[in-house]
């Protein structure tokens, strides 16, 4: 039996009727058409499906859409608009810019998840050490072995965001 849910995704409210067993990642991709959230392992290990649920990084393959009822979701599509000073005029979030500038990706499959996990990290800890970045990203796997550049991308974003606050 379908259940009514209301979820605010990237600042826009969606009222949907969903099957209770629908996973949040399928809701985002198949119902809302937001395919920037990737499906990797489907077993809560790889982190490709990471989104922010009420500001916290979660693996959307291990959350039911009904569990997000009444919540706020940020996906990679909505991140730039939430960056300070960006508004709706586009541009990149500082973490996205870091991945661009520091070549933090090769194939790009893990990138949306990496970026959203990094966003939560920098919110909790604006100046993380390399060890702290590695620990924060332990739940996001990159099969291109691009970790070093990813660390540099996050450090770039940390610097840029702390400058913006000064």
């Amino acid at each position, binding site marked *: 039996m379908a*259940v009514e849910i209301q979820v605010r995704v990237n600042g826009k409210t969606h009222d949907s009727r969903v099957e*209770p*067993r629908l996973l949040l990642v399928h809701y985002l991709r198949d119902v809302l058409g937001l395919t920037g959230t990737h499906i990797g392992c489907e*077993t*809560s290990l790889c982190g490709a499906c990471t989104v922010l649920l009420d500001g916290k990084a*979660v693996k959307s393959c*291990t959350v*039911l859409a009904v*569990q997000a009822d009444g919540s706020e979701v940020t996906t990679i599509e909505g991140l730039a608009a939430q960056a300070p000073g960006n508004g709706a005029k586009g541009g990149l979030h500082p973490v996205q810019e870091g991945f661009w500038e520091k070549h933090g990706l090769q194939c790009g499959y893990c990138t949306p998840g990496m970026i959203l996990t990094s966003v939560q990290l920098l919110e909790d800890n604006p100046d993380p050490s390399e060890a702290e970045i590695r620990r924060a990203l*332990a739940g996001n796997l990159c099969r291109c072995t691009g970790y070093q550049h990813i660390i540099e991308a996050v450090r770039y974003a940390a610097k840029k965001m702390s400058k913006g606050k000064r």
Partner: protein
Amino acid sequence: MIPAAFEYHVPKTLEETLRLLERHGDEAKVLAGGHSLLPLMKLRLAAPRYVIDIGRLRGMSYIREENGQIAIGALTTHADLESSALLLMRCPLLPETAAEIGDVQVRNRGTLGGSLAHADPAGDYPASILALDAEIIAASTAGTRTICARDFFVDMLTTQLRPGEILSQVRVPPLAPRTGAAYCKLHQPASGFAIVGVAARLTLGKGGKIDSAAVGITGVGPKAYRAAAVEKALRGKKPSPKLLADAARHAAQGVEPLSDLHASAEYRREMAAVFTRRALERAIARAQGKKA
């Protein structure tokens, strides 16, 4: 990987939850953060007819001092435990354990109550809950009862909780004077689950001898257990590296270790001794007021 269909309930209160559980009995599963239950449902290892979502019940996520103990609500997440100022000061073993679970995303969603009720043989909390002699509060329409940690774990994925009961709270004692505790874990590198996880809590007497020792071990057997032989070998003795290493050799005594593609039974037995020694060393150093 999509779960089998189920009927979904979102009760507004604990009372309503308990009535639903009473009505549906063992056909119902309680969903909190979903990080134990949903993986099982996606693999179709579990296909409950009713899912009762308590994830957003009010007043079940808290960490507070109560009658000389620390009471923790079942819906408290691993991330909340990891960063709780109260626990870091009064019962640092729990934050140390929570920090070893999964990854950031898992710790953001997974809950203490859900993890304990699931009783995964490779879960982290059972070791610490046992070493702390914690109490687990189970609620049902008939009222609440207290289960001590030693009795709580029955077998692989099986606890003392009865159909119709919900784990509502965990109570742990604050760290006593001259006491040190530590959790040391060998991670399965892909999943992060414990191949071996050892929680030790040691109290020194005024003369520097070990007054009391509690050691909980997870990952090794089908359920977490207290390493009674290790504890016995320590009690009343003056701590030395040799004593700790000798005691640690009894870590898997009386236990038939699990064997799987990640670790053979022999390897688990060996690692149980290694990680028990490490946990004891760290706990002793902390009890002596050293940084460890």
